[in-house]
């Protein structure tokens, strides 16, 4: 649970514990990267309370979106209220 949003790593700093700067579409914040040791500059991570808790899997993301976009179009009037 809890608020976590994806951002792109723009710097990885030489600190202990591992940290870096993550860009969220024009907003940058220092983020602790200790739990995403594999994440590099350019990668997207999910950030929660200042920690990257997951590396975004671009392929899975593309697959999910492809599924959604393949869904047949709906007739407006079916939707309510």
């Amino acid at each position, binding site marked *: *649970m*809890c*608020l*976590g*949003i*994806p*951002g*792109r790593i723009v710097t990885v700093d030489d600190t202990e*514990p591992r940290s870096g700067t993550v860009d*969220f*579409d024009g907003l940058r914040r220092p983020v*602790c990267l*200790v*739990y*995403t*040791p594999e994440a590099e500059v350019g990668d*997207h991570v*999910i950030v*929660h*309370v*200042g*920690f990257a*808790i*997951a590396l*975004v*899997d*671009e392929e*899975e*993301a593309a*697959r*999910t*979106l492809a*599924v*959604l*976009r393949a*869904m*047949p*179009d*709906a*007739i*407006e009037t*079916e*939707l*309510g*209220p």
Partner: protein
Amino acid sequence: MKHLQEYRDPVLARRLLAELRTTATAPWTIMEVCGGQTHTIVRQGIDRLLPAGMRMIHGPGCPVCVTPLETIDRALAIAARPDVILTSYGDMLRVPGTSGDLLSLKARGADVRVVYTPLDAVRTAAENPGREVVFLAVGFETTAPANAMAVLHAAATGVTNFSALVSQVLVPPAITALMDDPDAQVQAFLAAGHVCAVMGWTEYEPIARAYGVPVVVTGFEPLDLLEGVLMAVRQLEQGRAEVENQYARAVRRSGNTAAQDAIRRVFQVTDRTWRGIGPIPASGLALRPEFARHDAAVRFEVGDLVTRESPDCIAGDVLRGTRLPTDCSAYGRTCTPRTPLGAPMVSSEGTCAAFFNAGRTPEHR
């Protein structure tokens, strides 16, 4: 934002809803466990678009709601000490304790500060060597790695005036407890995406099997939730009860093992009382004894705490999903976001507050 905006697309949302209407043949009852998901559902009005009869039940996944009253009262007692700087996530400041909340205590002179990350609390401690900095470490498995790292970092850097008042909780035991309740109405679960990003979903496989409930690991955006609901409904319609992963872009089956390691180093599993729900065995995390010097519950003697809840509040039933906020006699009358009687009225993703802010009345639930 990439990986965010795409999942708010109104056209795709309509397609998903149409698909859901086509798929669902029965009035299924699905619980989203997580408060963050509740927030999206209520704010976007998603539940009001579901096929007739189908219900979303809002689960106990809001740390603000389930943090035990005793912990809140203990935090208030510690914060009242002049030598203490109490740090907390913003959410916790308005949670009612037995005799007030942290915001009121602050107005009366206590030094209470909001932090965005527990590492800020450690930094505050390093910057204020003459004070005791206490961090109110609540939350589910998502916050546990961050809170663990704060303790490890303080210990490693010798910040001895940092301590955590820990009341971490765990989701799977709560789901088990919910399903063991004879009143249980839930037919499928949306598991919380970020909890699973940390813990993976293997813990949910025995639950799905044992109770025959589908579990879909789900993200937080409107399309995530709609797809999660659709995946759960498909299982229900097909008579399956498996763990599926809607949030594949962030969640792997085994979760984040580095984070799990840190949690295990710092915390141990303990019984925990959930506010409104009661004690659930092995449903919480406490600091291991070797971190006692960073354990605020050990370091600060606050005497006997006498906790008392409002007799009107049915938060337990609300959190278990057996009743709606609008069933509560206090809802919208003596209990409002301005004057919360129970925790679910506090945070905007608390079920009662989410209902209230969305203008839900008993007539228009």
